[in-house]
């Protein structure tokens, strides 16, 4: 087997910029370098035209009805902050209650924590064991004081897809705004803000084969017109919602990345699904005691999060160091706590420590999948041979009955 090493399979973390995107972006550094706000001369107008085109491409990728609904930001973290804090601050008179989910990205969770310090209240919904939100619980949490529901499209750790259209309907019925963090979703699943009743949506270029440092917030302008308080004040760019000179080359790249998605999504989804299926069935056919984390089918096509029981995640990563993946093991974080997302699913800490997240993307090949299967099987087998837990299980000992000396 000839596979070029190392293999990149951590596409939830970031993606390689598509060469077609790089090509489109480059002239905007040294040839078309005007400030998009300089409308009085040709340099500025050329830059503005490029930004306008990108805005249309971005709007189209998420089914927005107008390119005026796209606010350019530095990335999903900024978009998350702007949406949540911007809505809360604007609608403080209407209500002080927000709803989100405990498996959201830290940018969403921490924005809520910041608002709580200002006196807002947040309900953090739990999830079902498959990682999905319970719609009845969501509906029950809504009050007359609720101003915003923030629920992500695709989870960054386990890849599950939340029932967005149903959530949108519930929000509409109660007149509550619906914000969706779609950083992991654009280009991975079908997204349409109109059909799904999404009022605000955050996304970022670097998760969809574009560059880092550029993102957007979709802000609905009709039915209802969403009003936000800006966080960044200055020259009044982005209709006053986000001041700061536009990063024209990055915006052009972001637009092109969106264009590639719009054109190729169905084909790409089918290809990623096939690769993921190949990986999962390959692992399952050769290893016992492995578990899929999150809903089996309602998940982004390239996403697979697996617990390899009795093998600690970081030691597994070390053994397959030529393959870039990530782990929910505490040892890979600074906190010594295993993944809060897996915990929220009710996955035992013990199994959370053994989880690996595979993020298959546009540039992965079948050969890479086969190589990954072979290496993971080898290393898991080797590590199980030196695992006291595996030994106990082979001896028929129930690990729950052991009196452990935790430290």
């Amino acid at each position: 087997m000839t596979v070029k090493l190392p293999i990149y399979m951590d596409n939830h973390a970031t993606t390689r910029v598509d060469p077609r995107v790089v090509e489109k972006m480059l002239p905007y550094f040294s040839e078309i370098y005007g400030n998009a706000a300089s409308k009085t001369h040709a340099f500025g107008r050329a830059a503005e035209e490029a930004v306008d085109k990108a805005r249309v491409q971005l709007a189209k990728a998420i089914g927005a009805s107008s390119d005026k609904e796209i606010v350019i930001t530095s990335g999903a973290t900024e978009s998350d902050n702007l949406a949540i804090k911007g809505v809360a601050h604007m609608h403080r008179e209407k209500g002080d209650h927000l709803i989100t989910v405990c498996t959201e990205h830290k940018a969403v969770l921490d924005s809520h924590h910041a608002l709580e310090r200002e006196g807002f209240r947040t309900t953090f919904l739990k999830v079902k064991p498959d990682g999905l939100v319970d719609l009845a619980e969501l509906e029950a949490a809504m009050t007359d004081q609720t101003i915003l529901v923030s629920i992500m499209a695709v989870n960054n750790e386990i890849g599950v897809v939340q029932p967005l259209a149903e959530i949108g309907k519930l929000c509409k019925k109660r007149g509550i705004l619906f914000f969706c963090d779609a950083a992991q979703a654009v280009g991975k699943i079908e997204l349409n803000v109109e059909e799904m009743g999404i009022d605000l949506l955050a996304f970022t270029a670097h998760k969809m084969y574009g560059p880092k440092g550029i993102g957007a917030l979709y802000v609905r302008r009709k039915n209802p017109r969403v009003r936000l308080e800006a966080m960044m004040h200055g020259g009044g760019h982005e209709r006053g919602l986000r001041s700061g000179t536009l990063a024209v080359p990055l915006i052009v790249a972001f637009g092109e990345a969106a264009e590639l998605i719009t054109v190729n999504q169905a084909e790409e989804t089918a290809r990623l699904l096939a690769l993921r299926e190949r990986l999962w069935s390959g692992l399952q056919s050769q290893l016992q005691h492995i578990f899929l984390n999150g809903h089996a089918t309602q998940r982004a096509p390239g996403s697979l999060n697996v617990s390899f029981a009795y093998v600690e995640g970081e030691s597994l990563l070390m053994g397959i160091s030529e393959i870039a993946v990530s782990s929910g093991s505490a040892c890979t974080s600074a906190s010594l706590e295993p993944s809060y997302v897996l915990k929220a699913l009710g996955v035992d800490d013990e199994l959370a420590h053994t989880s690996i997240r595979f993020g298959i993307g546009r540039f992965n090949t079948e050969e890479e999948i086969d190589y990954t299967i072979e290496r993971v099987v080898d290393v898991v087998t080797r590590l199980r041979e030196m695992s006291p837990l595996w030994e106990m299980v082979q001896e028929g000992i129930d690990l729950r009955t052991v009196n452990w000396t935790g430290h």
Partner: protein
Amino acid sequence: MAYSEKVLDHYNNPRNVGALPKDDPSVGTGVVGAPECGDVMKLQIKVGANGVIEDARFKTFGCGSAIASSSLATEWVKGKTLAEAALIRNTDIVQELNLPPIKIHCSVLAEDAIRAALADFAAKQEKNA
């Protein structure tokens, strides 16, 4: 995380992986840690009639530093008397393996595993005395 050369060496070529018969009166077994904390170490010693540790084995569920710490511990206890083995400190392991602060608990666990194995052996001796 960047691993030290020594951690990588122990991870790739662990010394003394395996098991000794735990019911053998000359074998002391220590099992420390907990699966939900992400590391469990089993360390065993086989003690000769002269009170010298003749052999040692380990199995570890844990990160690379935990595997390296226990592998090193088995190397170090071999050939030592029980009293000498009891003097091995986690700080010695930290120094030898160049463990970063976040991995110090791995070395603590290895020291605990040595002590647990020594205590198990002593308990067996007392029972058989």
